[in-house]
């Protein structure tokens, strides 16, 4: 079973990507953004939990009306140089007030987690083989910050609002 970090704990992933569970037997499916766009009405009535997976170029605004139904948004990172996900997360959390699980998935590494968490990600699916115990320590790299942010579970001392 896949493990990930959620709210600073290592947990088993109780979600499946659509290609892993074509029939949605586990009643918790993450759909690619394009498929969600195309089959939105059909999935809306399905009786399982729904998540949507965004690529770096997908517009988060298109999800703004879907949060009653979509409980998880997974944002993809193709590599360390891919930084659009940070802005996508900020917008989801701060502008569109998304309150569900916000997952970073893809080629992310330990040392990005602090920034990702500050942008509002609360779950982290690291590449297979990553040491999640080591990754957990990343949230404690800093106890202070200059910016207000959308972070969840990090209580940082700040000077300005």
């Amino acid at each position: 079973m896949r493990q990930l970090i959620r709210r600073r704990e290592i947990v088993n992933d109780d979600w499946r990507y659509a290609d892993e569970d074509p029939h949605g037997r586990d009643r918790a499916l993450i759909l690619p953004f394009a498929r969600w766009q195309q089959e939105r009405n059909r999935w809306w009535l399905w009786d399982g939990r729904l998540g949507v997976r965004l690529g770096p170029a997908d517009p988060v605004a298109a999800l703004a009306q879907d949060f009653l139904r979509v409980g998880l948004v997974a944002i993809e990172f193709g590599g360390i140089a891919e930084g659009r996900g940070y802005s996508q997360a900020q917008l989801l959390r701060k502008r569109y007030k998304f309150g569900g699980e916000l997952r970073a998935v893809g080629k992310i590494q330990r040392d990005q987690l602090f920034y990702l968490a500050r942008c509002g990600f609360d779950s982290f699916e690291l590449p297979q083989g990553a040491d999640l115990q080591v990754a957990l320590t990343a949230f404690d790299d800093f106890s202070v910050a200059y910016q207000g942010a959308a972070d969840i579970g990090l209580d940082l001392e700040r000077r300005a609002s």
Partner: protein
Amino acid sequence: MYRYDSIDQRLVEQRVAQFRDQTQRFLAGQLSDDDFKSLRLRNGLYIQKHAPMLRVSIPYGLLSTAQVRVLARIAREYDRDFGHFTTRQNIQYNWPKLEQVPDILALLATVEMHAIQTSGNCIRNVTADHLAGVAPDELEDPRPWCEYIRQWATLHPEFSYLPRKFKIAVTGSPQDRAASRVHDIGLHLVRNAAGEVGFEVLVGGGLGRAPMIGHVIREFLPKQELLAYLEAILRVYNLEGRRDNIHKARIKILVKALGPQKFRELVEAEFAAARDIAPRYDAAEFERIRSFFASPHYESLLDENVEAGKSREFRNWYRQNTRKHKVTGYRAVFVSLKPPNSPPGDITAKQLDRVADLADRYSLGLVRATHDQNLLFADVRQSDLYALWQALLELDLATANIGTLTDMICCPGLDFCSLANARSIPIAAQLNERFDDLDHLYDLGEIQLKMSGCMNGCGHHSVGHIGILGVDKSGEEWYQITLGGSTGGADASLGEVIGPSVAYDEVVDTIERIINVYVAERHEEERFLDTFRRIGVAPFKARVYAPAHQAA
């Protein structure tokens, strides 16, 4: 100057611990070269030709003497006894050992310094006019705003993985001494018709491979909106900037592709949409920062006839290397890092220590690094100038060449840098040999010569009155010459290529021929740049490439 409180201090100490851990994981084989690269590059650590290179941040170029002494100690204990000042007002060390870098950072943290964001695709050191706070023509001191931006940009969660590096410069004077028009963002403090002071915002300037002059996208931004507006620009860039090609990833390419008008619309729309989530202006916090930059207590002095009865050497130095100060009886003094016999911008550990002593004695304990790779004592009493000159002379820091041809900007080039195509330091040395007569240099007047060893343009060649760019031709070092670049102000311009590039041993002769054309064509007292603008590139082209010298 700004002093750290417990939050600032804890942040740099935690950064040291974080980087120590990253370095240990790398040395233990737990981090791949690539993974470590992306981490060390956020901290100014490059792997260069001979050794790692560590770039230390000097926010807007301002240093206390305690900091200067630590920079000297690092040069002595961890490097080969010298450091190199850069065009971002930073200092870099060319010979540190990788495993010792965490110790160097720890030492820097003891004097409120760090190497955060001196490289990598993030917001780099914010630069300012080196005469900030003392220039007679200044509307308002830009440095409190620089510090305000510095804090906001430090470890910014959203903008630490941008498409490419991002550089911001702030000026408070009509004369642009910070090259702000060739920055990703240039901020000018200006007064509007209602008499309020705010910012003119330029975006999309830059040097390197595709040099461009920035576009004004906001004529007047109320000060309180600064961070909110910067966030809007950065968010548009972060989401829309190209990531598929490193050479097309700077914001200037995005601004050019969209057109400045469309880019401005996107920014204004984001700015409006983000109003309730953007960072709020905190007046108390800004005032706290600003209080550190309050004008020091100046003595009531009279202007002196400094030159009377003094030697010609001193008078030359006084005219060339000192500048008018806003307070009567004071001068701002350049410490020239452009002596004929050493690479531009280099300084030894001993010189750094003595500079600190002199600044304590003569300039209120502060030193500034300038973007053209000199140092500056901003607050020197006119009555101390002679003694200061004598002391600087002994240290080889009084070459009276500021603003002349030999006060050149020069990158480390192929001697040190693994990106370079060609050497720049030996060309600088040859130019110094050829133009070794100060009187001749004074006759030639103000000429900004800027030289880069490759297209990345660390030596700002695109905006040199004379620009020299090292290019690679089948493994040989060649040099492309441009004329007419300028960072001056509203009339900032990019240099024009004069013709085919020239071989390594032809560069100095070529420059001399260019100078000869200028001397023949100039009207009395006319600056090189003005002559060039008046007569254009053709006469230079015609006479520089005389048949005997036809280049490949």
